[in-house]
């Protein structure tokens, strides 16, 4: 097990390096360069040249990259161009807010998706199965930004049940209850599509397992249905389900970006969007790096959990998944 973990960790190193290169290159994809943004439209070319030298932008890219990486490794993402604050100070608290939203949504999505999928598989082709599979098919194709607006329309504007924007009330807000009230709608929106996809996948992998011969043998031996489902089927269906849950987290994080914008949730997606609108490259880079790091960590955890559940993976010691 330890060997597996170490093996996976080693494969992560080059990925981390690559991710940093991609994020570094991002800044150079932008039209014009930073000096245009910093000095404004009326600056002369000479002024820009001075600034370029001061920032080290005249040096070759690899040199710039190493310099940049040095700073990043010390947690220094540079100053936000839009509001002149250290990027790291700006994005870390936002990251926490995003983590809250993402984790709660993931919990919603996995629990609901898992049970709907299990019930649908246990009673395949029943009324419940057909209804839930149609609903999940539609939800799985629903854009999160549109679903969010519909939910706002119903729950906030028409029925006035829950707040539509922000994380706490402006006037005597704060406290866990207030945050939870603000969390419900964005979390539901974020969770909808992943829950739907998880439900479909859980159903499919359960049905696959249930058609195996050893399940037929178990049934022939007279083992009760519930026990077969729990002991024989679920246990074997778990590794693919965990993999799917991990993959869905990427989709979920993507959804979070949209949902934060819609619900004005003060998270990293919202910050990223504001950074994009303000052409604030350091903020964009910082936010992207943080989300990518979180995503890599999650994928790593999924692999470890899977190795724990499935000896076949564990014993292939650290060989890449696929």
């Amino acid at each position, binding site marked *: 097990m330890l060997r597996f973990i170490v093996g996976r960790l080693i494969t992560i190193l080059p*990925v981390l390096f690559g991710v940093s290169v991609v994020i570094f290159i*991002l800044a150079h*994809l932008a039209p014009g360069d930073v000096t245009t943004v910093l000095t404004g439209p009326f600056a002369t070319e000479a002024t820009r040249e001075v600034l370029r030298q001061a920032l080290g932008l005249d040096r070759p890219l690899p040199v710039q990259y190493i310099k940049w990486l040095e700073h990043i490794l010390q947690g220094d993402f540079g100053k936000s161009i839009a509001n002149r604050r250290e990027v790291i100070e700006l994005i870390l608290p936002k990251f926490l807010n995003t983590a809250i939203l993402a984790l709660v949504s993931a919990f919603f999505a996995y629990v609901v998706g898992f049970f709907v999928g299990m019930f649908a598989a246990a009673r395949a082709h029943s009324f419940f199965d057909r209804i839930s599979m149609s609903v999940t098919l539609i939800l799985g194709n629903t854009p999160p930004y549109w679903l969010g607006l519909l939910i706002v329309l119903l729950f906030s*504007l028409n029925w006035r049940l829950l707040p539509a924007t922000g994380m706490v009330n402006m006037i005597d807000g704060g406290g866990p209850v207030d945050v939870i009230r603000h969390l419900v709608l964005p979390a539901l929106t974020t969770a909808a599509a992943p829950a739907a996809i998880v439900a479909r996948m859980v159903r499919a992998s359960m049905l696959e397992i249930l058609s195996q011969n050893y399940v037929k043998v178990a049934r022939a031996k007279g083992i009760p249905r519930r026990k077969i489902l729990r002991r024989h089927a679920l246990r074997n269906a778990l590794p693919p389900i965990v993999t799917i849950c991990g993959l869905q987290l990427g989709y979920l994080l993507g959804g979070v970006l949209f949902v934060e*914008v819609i619900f004005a949730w003060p998270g990293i997606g919202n910050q990223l969007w504001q950074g*994009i609108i303000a052409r604030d490259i350091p903020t964009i880079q910082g936010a992207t790096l943080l989300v990518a790091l979180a995503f890599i960590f999650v994928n790593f955890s999924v692999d470890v959990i899977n190795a724990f559940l499935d000896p076949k993976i564990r014993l292939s010691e650290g060989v890449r998944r696929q």
Partner: protein
Amino acid sequence: MSDHTSSVSRKASNDAGRVSAATAWQIRRERFRFHLRTLKLAWYAYAKDKAALGALVFFVIVAFLAIFAPYVSPYDPAEAVAGINSPPFAEGLILGADVDGRDILSRLFWGGRIALLVGIGPTFAATVVSLMLGIVAGYVGGWVDQVIMRVMDILFAFPLVLLAIVIAGVMNPGVGTVILAIAIALAPYIARLVRTTTMNVKQQPYIEAARAAGAGTTAILVRYIFPNMVAPVLVYATTLIGLMMVVGSGLSFLGLGVQPPDADWGTMVAEGRGVLRKAPHATVFPGLVIVFVSLAFNFIGDGLRDALDPRARSR
């Protein structure tokens, strides 16, 4: 099954140099008939799935309306033709008017051009690139494979939507940017499928037989590896088109895609956002269209899977 027969007919056509031109012509005709028959069988298998058939019809209608938007849309999509936020069926507009009094139906037709382009364009581009990368990686193997797949691993480390948003975000907004951004973010997913399929096919005995018969690398890639790729990649790509349309419209929704006053289903949702309470129809309709078209691509993908791979069970 088709690769088997084509290898037989290839052998026959190699011999054809020595037989009369008439026989060669006959062989070619037989081969053509065989392909026609395969296509027919595939179509029957596809048409048996009523959902897939319905989805195809729906997609054809949507595509027709989008392509011929200048001729079929009742009004100019950029011009105010009715009262602001006029509800559906009022003032002669079936779907009502948006926040600027423009006809929503016409804007849906025009927006369909961009939405479909943003769904199909990146998927197509990513598929072409991934086919090349994946086949090379899977067939050549060794360090070439390592390099290509490690680079793909790096792109995998970003959630797809994040990568697309960020790439589109730092470049100048526009349809081209959106297509490029999504294509880059999507390529690793298809490349991985292509690589796995290539590696599976590579181990088949008929590849060994072909090599023993003197087929070169190019011949093997073109005649055996590539045909085996068509079914899985086409099915995967079709399903992805719907998803990429959702993502692409999302980028437009964030203001990274097509710029006003041009219409796109995503920007239409965004424009409706401000008047959600007063004019919910301005938000609801474009979103519904996105959902329906995305669903259609799902069904078409399912149907294609049944048609192209008889072994795959239909769910």
